[in-house]
C-alpha cells in the first residue's frame, strides 16, 4: 500500500472517530438544552476519540520508518555471498547503493548486474512485505486506540482537558524545534569537524598559513595530505567584512541620523521604504552586480590610476557587501537613536546647542552601546555572507591586506569544497564542516554579545 493511500485511510478513520465520538457524547449526555450532564462539549469527545485513533498510528509509523530500513538492509547483507559480505565498510555501502539502485530500476554497472540481481530481488520483496505489515499494523493500532477512547467516553469524562493537554504538548514540541535546530547544527557540524581534526591537527588548521585543499583529491596522489591552514581564509574574511563595515557603518549611521533628525516627515516616508528595498534584494543579485558591474568598474578605475587590480578584488566584493548591510545598520541605528529620550535632546537644545552638536555630543554618546550592538550584528552578517563573495571574490587563498588583490573567505571555501562531486570521508570535504564550525561559533558569539548589549541598552531607557 502506498504511503498516500495509507494517509488517506488514516484521515478517513480520524473523521469517522470524531463523528462517532461526538454522537456517543450526545447520546449519553441527553439532548442539548436539557440539564447539563456532560462535563465537556460533545465535540471535545469527538476530538478525543479522533486523537486516540490517529496518534498511536503515527507513533507506529515513525518507529517503523526509523527501524525498517536498518532491518531490511541487514537481512539483505546476510543474504549476500561471502565475498561481498566481508568487504570493508565503505565498499559495502557502495554495493548496497548499487543494489538499491537496481531495485529502483536504475542503471547499474552491467558487468556486476548478475551478482546483485538476487539481492535486489530480496530487497524489493522485503520492502513490499514491510509496507504491507506496516499498513496492517497501523490500521489495527488505530482501531485499538479508538476502542480505548470509546470506552472512556462518559458524561463526567473531562474530554476537553485531555484534548487541551494534547494541544499543549504539540505547542511545546513546536517550540522545541528551535532548540533542536541549534542542537542539530552544533552536533552535525561538530561531528564532522572532529573527524576532520583526526586527520588534520587542530593547531595546523587554526594557525597554518597555507591553504590548498585541492591537492587532496585522491589518496594515491603525491602531496595528498593537502594543506589546511585556515589563516588566509580568516584574513580574507576579515578584509572583506572590514571593507563592508567601513562602507556600511558611516553611511548607514548618517542615513539614520539624517532621516530621524533632519528630514521632513514627507521625505522620511518616501526614503525609508526605498532604502528598505535594498535590504530585501536577494544576495545573489548583489553578487551578480558585484561580479558583472562593480568589479570591472574598479578594475578600470584602478588601471587608469596605474594600479594593478585583480579582477576579483576584495574591494569589489566588500563594497557591494557594504551596500547590502547599509539598510541593516541604518534601521538598527534608527531604533537606538529614537530610543534616546526626548528630554535629552531638549536639555541640549535648551542650552543653545545646534542640531549637529546635540547629535554628536549627546545623542550619539548616549546611543553608543546600541550602535555598537548593531555594528556587531552587521559584522556577523558580513562574515556569514556567502553569495556575494562566492560570485565576486576569488578562490586563491592569498594572505594579504591589499584590498585590490584577490582573497578568499571562509564561506567561499565551504561552498567550493562541498559543491560538486565529493568523497565523504576525504579531509577536503570534512574541512568544510570545520570551517562551518568556526563560522557558526564566531557568529554565535558576536550575536550573543550584540543582542545582550542591545537589550541592556533598551532597558536603560525603558
Amino acid at each position, binding site marked *: 500500500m502506498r504511503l498516500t493511500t495509507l494517509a488517506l485511510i488514516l484521515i478517513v478513520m480520524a473523521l469517522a472517530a470524531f463523528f462517532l465520538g461526538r454522537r456517543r457524547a450526545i447520546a449519553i449526555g441527553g439532548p442539548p438544552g436539557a440539564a447539563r450532564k456532560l462535563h465537556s462539549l460533545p465535540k471535545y469527545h469527538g476530538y478525543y476519540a479522533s486523537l486516540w485513533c490517529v496518534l498511536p498510528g503515527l507513533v507506529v509509523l515513525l518507529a517503523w520508518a526509523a527501524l525498517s530500513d536498518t532491518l531490511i538492509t541487514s537481512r539483505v547483507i546476510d543474504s549476500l555471498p561471502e565475498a561481498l559480505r566481508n568487504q570493508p565498510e565503505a565498499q559495502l555501502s557502495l554495493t548496497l547503493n548499487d543494489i538499491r539502485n537496481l531495485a529502483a530500476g536504475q542503471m547499474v554497472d552491467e558487468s556486476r548486474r548478475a551478482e546483485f540481481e538476487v539481492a535486489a530481488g530480496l530487497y524489493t520483496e522485503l520492502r513490499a512485505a514491510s509496507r504491507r505489515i506496516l499498513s496492517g499494523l497501523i490500521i489495527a493500532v488505530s482501531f485499538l486506540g479508538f476502542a480505548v477512547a470509546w470506552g472512556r467516553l462518559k458524561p463526567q469524562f473531562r474530554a476537553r482537558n485531555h484534548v487541551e493537554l494534547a494541544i499543549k504538548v504539540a505547542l511545546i514540541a513546536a517550540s522545541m524545534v528551535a532548540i533542536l535546530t541549534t542542537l542539530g547544527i552544533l552536533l552535525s557540524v561538530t561531528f564532522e569537524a572532529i573527524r576532520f581534526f583526526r586527520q588534520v591537527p587542530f593547531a595546523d588548521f587554526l594557525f597554518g598559513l597555507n591553504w590548498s585543499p585541492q591537492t587532496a583529491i585522491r589518496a594515491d596522489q603525491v602531496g595528498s595530505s593537502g594543506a589546511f591552514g585556515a589563516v588566509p581564509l580568516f584574513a580574507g574574511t576579515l578584509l572583506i567584512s572590514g571593507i563592508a563595515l567601513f562602507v556600511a557603518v558611516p553611511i548607514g549611521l548618517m542615513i539614520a541620523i539624517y532621516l530621524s533628525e533632519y528630514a521632513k*516627515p514627507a521625505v522620511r516616508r518616501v526614503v525609508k521604504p526605498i532604502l528598505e528595498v535594498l535590504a530585501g534584494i536577494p544576495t545573489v543579485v548583489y553578487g551578480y552586480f558585484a561580479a558583472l558591474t562593480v568589479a570591472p568598474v574598479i578594475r578600470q578605475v584602478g588601471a587608469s590610476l596605474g594600479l594593478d587590480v585583480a579582477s576579483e578584488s576584495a574591494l569589489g566584493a566588500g563594497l557591494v557587501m557594504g551596500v547590502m548591510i547599509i539598510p541593516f545598520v541604518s534601521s538598527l541605528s534608527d531604533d537606538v537613536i529614537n530610543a534616546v*529620550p*526626548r*528630554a*535629552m*535632546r*531638549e*536639555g*541640549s*537644545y*535648551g*542650552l*543653545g*546647542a*545646534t542640531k549637529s*552638536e546635540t547629535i554628536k*555630543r*549627546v545623542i550619539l*554618546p*548616549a546611543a553608543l552601546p546600541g550602535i555598537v550592538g548593531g555594528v556587531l550584528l552587521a559584522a556577523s552578517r558580513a562574515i556569514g555572507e556567502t553569495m556575494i563573495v562566492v560570485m565576486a571574490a576569488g578562490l586563491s587563498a592569498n594572505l594579504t591586506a591589499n584590498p585590490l588583490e584577490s582573497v578568499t573567505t571562509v564561506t567561499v571555501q565551504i561552498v567550493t569544497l562541498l559543491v560538486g562531486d565529493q568523497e565523504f570521508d576525504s579531509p577536503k570535504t570534512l574541512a568544510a564542516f570545520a570551517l562551518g564550525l568556526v563560522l557558526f561559533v564566531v557568529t554565535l558569539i558576536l550575536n550573543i554579545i550584540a543582542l545582550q548589549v542591545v537589550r541592556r541598552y533598551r532597558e536603560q531607557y525603558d
Partner: protein
Amino acid sequence: MLLMDREKGFAAMREPADGREPVAATPVSPMVIADAAETDRIAADTVGDVTAKDAVICVRGGNVHYGETHALRDINLDVGRNEVIALIGPSGCGKSTFIRCLNRMNDTIESAKVTGDFRLDGQDIYARDTDVVMLRARVGMVFQKPNPFPKSIYENVAYGPRIHGLASNRAELDDIVYGSLERAGLVDEVKDRLDEPGTGLSGGQQQRLCIARTIAVNPEVILMDEPCSALDPIATARIEDLIDELSQKYAIAIVTHSMQQAARVSNRTAYFHLGRLVEVGPTDKIFTNPSHKLTEDYVTGRFG
C-alpha cells in the same frame, strides 16, 4: 502637615511627566468652565497689570497653534529683570507652552505655529535674523524631569560653555564649572566625584546639576518648567531656596502646579486657563485677593 497633604493632592493632578504636556491639551474637570468659548467670554481680557518695570521679556498678542488646537490665545505678559514670575493654572492651560515660546523650544515640535510679538530686550525673538543658538544661550531652561546627559558631572556643566566657546582654556572652563556648581549649591556634594556620571546622582541633585548646567552658560533669563514635579519635598525645598538666590542675578519664569511653591518663590503670579492668561498680579494679591472668579476658584482649590 496640612502642607504635605496639599502637596500630595496636587501630585495626583499633575500633568503626565513625559514632558509632552504641551502637545495634547487635556480637558479639565467638569466642574470648571471647560468650554473654550465660555472662557473666551469671561476671560477675554487679562485682569491686572501685565507690564513689568524694567522688562527683559515682553510678549504682546502671543498665539500658539498645535495643528488644529489653539493652545495659547492673545497673551500679553512681561517678565521683569530680577523678578521671579510664577505661571500657574490647571493642566493643559498653556503655561508650559508659554515659556517654551520664550526660547523657541517649540521650534522642535513640528506642528507648532507661533504668532504674535515676543521680545527679548526689545529684540524680536521670532524675527528671521534672530539666532536661536544665541537666544537659547541668553534664555536658559530647566525641565520638568531632571535630564542630565549621560556624561560625567563635570562634562554636564562644561557642555554649554564648551559648545559656545565661553572658555578659552581649561582653567577658565574649570572656573566656570566650579562657579556654576557652587551657585547651584551642589559643589560640596560632588566636588570629589566630578568624573562620575551625572545620572548617578539623586533626583534633587540631578535637577540642581541641570540648573548648574543652565547657569554655566550665563543666561539672562531662566525658564523653569515645573522643576520640582519629580522631586520629593526635601529636594523641592532646596531647589526653592536656590531659586530664591538665583533671583538676585537672573530673571526667572517658573511654571508650577504647586500654589505653595508659587507663593514661596515668586514676586508675581500669572494665572492661565484654557490658553488664556486670566489674571496677573503680585503673588500675595493673587493668593489672598484674586480679582477674577476663575482665579479665585483655582487658588481656593475648587478645581485644579
